[in-house]
């Protein structure tokens, strides 16, 4: 009675339906396929779709909803005096029921109640399983029968099948929109709950960040402080350091590769530089924490500076190197897109190659380069692993790159890794930070993509 077995059964029935549909088409045509309006295979696929799609739809929607439905039914059976309890308590009770079913100890709820609920739970589960099997198989057979009945000489199966295919393709591409909607809704709802506890102005303009809430209200720092300015400045500081590395290095290397390097050198160096983009960020993070940060620290100490062991400089430098390929590949694209005639005009006036590049090529390519830089900035702001591993946790409001700062992404990770309670501002704060992060990067991306697109059109 496993859901997997049912899935396999549905697939087998679908295959059967294909054969059956084709057989029926041969049958109604009496061997003269030319009389059929569509190819026999189309009738097969038509029958397959009618058989499998409704059944699969049923299976998946049940897989998504089963827990909610069964939980609700179990709770509806509770005695009347239990119904009014707060939702959190009921949820705890349900967890106990599920734990007792798996043989794990409970957290101290009434054990007889848990036992009765557990029997009810298994009973409901079994009944639901049976119902699912019966319904699914009925759906399959009904679909098959419907198809069998419909298959006639003049039935436009090809048209139906192709509409279904296009429909499925549209569904695939709508997933992109669904994802965006999902992102917006998920961060927005939790953020709104957060802003009920903490005012928006305090979050956006507050200067102090210490989200650790005490368990008892009389402890020190009980309220927690949710001023995100130190996180924003920390993010900006590290991103600025990264861009100070990535922009000149990326731009100059792309200029060299596009304008100076001969064909062979370019063919070797370009993919080699791209390797930097393929290295997982966790590797950069490990490298920054283990090699670069101590090196900067020793270097600083040798000239008499105090450098934090998790300095913004180390994280920023390594992030900068990581971003180099983004800047260089986009710059390379736009520089090579500048028409040759513009260069030749400049050479004709007696300009050297570097003068041509600086005074003609770069200004012409500027919009594209700006777009590339904006994309790189958005990547730097959203980058997580390097800063989680190499930057600090303390929210210092400072512009000194030698001190430890924390970033938005670091805080999201620290707030959400480990135990989460979805009613404390501490957890919800992560979603508010996520919302800010999403909006800022979205803004940068839209501008950047727009600029790059406009630029491409200009020379196409």
């Amino acid at each position, binding site marked *: 009675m496993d859901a997997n077995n049912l899935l396999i059964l549905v697939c087998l029935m679908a295959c059967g339906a294909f054969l059956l549909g084709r057989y029926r088409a041969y049958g109604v045509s009496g061997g003269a396929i030319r009389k059929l309006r569509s190819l026999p295979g189309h009738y097969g696929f038509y029958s397959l779709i009618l058989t499998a799609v409704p059944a699969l739809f049923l299976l998946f929607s049940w897989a998504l909803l089963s827990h909610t439905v069964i939980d609700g039914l179990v709770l509806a059976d509770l005695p009347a005096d239990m119904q009014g309890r707060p939702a959190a308590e009921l949820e705890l009770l349900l967890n106990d029921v599920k734990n007792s079913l798996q043989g794990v100890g409970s957290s101290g709820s009434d054990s007889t109640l848990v036992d009765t609920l557990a029997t009810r739970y298994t009973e409901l589960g079994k009944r639901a399983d049976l119902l699912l099997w019966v319904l699914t198989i009925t759906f399959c057979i009904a679909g098959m029968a419907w198809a069998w009945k419909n298959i006639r000489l003049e039935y436009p199966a*090809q048209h139906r099948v*192709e509409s279904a295919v*296009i429909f*499925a*393709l*549209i*569904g*695939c*591409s709508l*997933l*992109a*929109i669904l*994802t*965006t909607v*999902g*992102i917006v809704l998920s*961060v927005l*709802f939790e953020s709104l709950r957060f802003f009920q506890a903490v005012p928006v102005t305090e979050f956006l303009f507050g200067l102090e960040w210490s989200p650790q809430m005490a368990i008892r209200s009389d402890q020190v720092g009980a309220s927690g402080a949710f001023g995100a300015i130190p996180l924003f400045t920390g993010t900006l500081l590290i991103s600025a350091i990264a861009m100070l590395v990535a922009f*000149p290095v*990326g731009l*100059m*290397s792309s200029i*060299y*590769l596009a304008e*100076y390097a001969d064909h062979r050198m370019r063919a070797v160096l370009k993919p080699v*530089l791209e390797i*930097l983009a*393929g*290295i*997982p*960020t*966790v*590797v950069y*993070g*490990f*490298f920054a924490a*283990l*090699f670069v940060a101590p090196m900067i620290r020793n270097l600083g100490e040798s000239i008499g500076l105090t450098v934090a062991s998790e300095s913004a400089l180390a994280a920023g430098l390594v992030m900068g*190197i990581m971003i*180099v390929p983004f800047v260089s590949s986009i710059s390379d694209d736009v520089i090579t897109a500048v028409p040759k005639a513009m260069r030749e005009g400049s050479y004709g006036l007696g300009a*050297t190659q*570097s*003068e041509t590049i*600086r005074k003609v090529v770069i200004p012409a390519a500027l919009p594209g380069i700006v777009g590339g830089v904006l*994309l790189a900035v*958005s990547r730097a702001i*959203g980058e*997580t*692993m390097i800063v*989680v*591993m190499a930057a600090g946790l303390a929210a210092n409001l400072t512009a000194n790159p030698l001190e430890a700062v924390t970033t938005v*992404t670091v805080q999201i*990770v620290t707030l*959400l*890794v480990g135990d989460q309670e979805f009613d404390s501002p501490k957890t919800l704060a992560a979603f508010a930070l*996520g919302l800010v992060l999403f909006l800022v*990067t979205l803004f940068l*991306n*839209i501008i*950047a993509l727009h600029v790059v697109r406009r630029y491409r059109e200009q020379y196409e």
Partner: protein
Amino acid sequence: MNSSDNTNSGKESTADRMRRGLRRRYAAERRFRLYGLASIVLALLFMLFLFTGIFGKGYTAFLQTQIRLTVDLASVEFPVSVEDIDGFYAVDYAGLIKESLYADFPEAGSRRDRRALYQLISPGASYFLRTRVMEAPELIGKSVDVWLPADDDVDMFVKGHFDGEENATGRLSEQQVAWIEALRKEGRLETHFNTTFFTAGDSREPELSGIRGALMGSIFTLLVTLTLSFPIGVGAAIYLEEFAPKNRWTDLIEVNVNNLAAVPSIVFGLLGLAVFINFFGVPRSAPVAGGFVLTLMTLPTIIISSRAVLKAVPPSIREAALGVGASRVQTVFHHVVPQALPGMLTGTIIGMAQALGETAPLLMIGMVAFIVDIPGGIFDPSTVLPVQIFLWADSPERAFMERTAAAIMVLLAFLVVMNATAVYLRKRFEKKW
């Protein structure tokens, strides 16, 4: 500066001025060129530094110090039947190991010395001894030589990780170092290939930990990602490129896809946490949840690259198919897609390589738990290779550092293989129309 020129003629000739200017301009030209070269060299040097640093730290993790002990299996009673697994588990293997050690070093008399002596051997050694005995029950009743893993402090010392530091022996006492030297002289302490690293799951003891669990987790996660993102991504690309009418809706989808490609990965983690885990109740820490999140993340990559490939298929092929009476769907699926398939596969492999290296969103959906068991399916709690790297990098034990670097080497090896496959496919099937 040019006072000598000026005194000669009084007034500088245009040619002179031009020559001087030229010299300056050529110098600027050379400088500019040098900057370009220097920035490439800088990036390459950094890469070299990164790889040598990690390889230099990590290669020693593929070796493990082991100590040969002579264990007297006659001294304890083993269960009669090989099937009696509980009986085998009940035997005091740690006691056997201790006795063997005390017999070899009778000078360790006091309780403290004995404890220090036993600390040379990994706390997991009894497990290795048990496995050895259960694999070869004929050894029971004999006195056998077994190689057992040394403790991670010993391992670090033997591999020379403490050399050049103030405290050149790490946490080991002088006495322990003397014992190690004695064992080494007798040829009973050697470094062997570290099979544990490839066969074990995570552990709190570095010498017992391995990447098998994380690797299986990664494979399951990628499997889920691939089965979902390839058909969906290719389907979306086909629709957008071949069927979609040019209107505001398709424009919106296009802008959306491009935007999603640039959304920070951690935001996808938040989406996964709020939607998949909290709303749909997908099991936390399971590859299926990770696979869903990574599917959404890799989709834009696959869609964008697949569209580029479809765009490159010349319209004449479509026109020819339509001309002989094929429907639009037939044209696309029988003629256009087969031409574009290798390119789409290339894009998918690159997307998968990205997904394999992704860490941040998986932290959000609880794949950071400490999991010892090796996952057996997509619903088992597990971790993935990059998250394992992150977890080990956070561990205070010295020995985890080399393991982190070694795990990175394994991860990079996988990425190299995947990218090389993509490059090969591209080269092999690339068509110039």
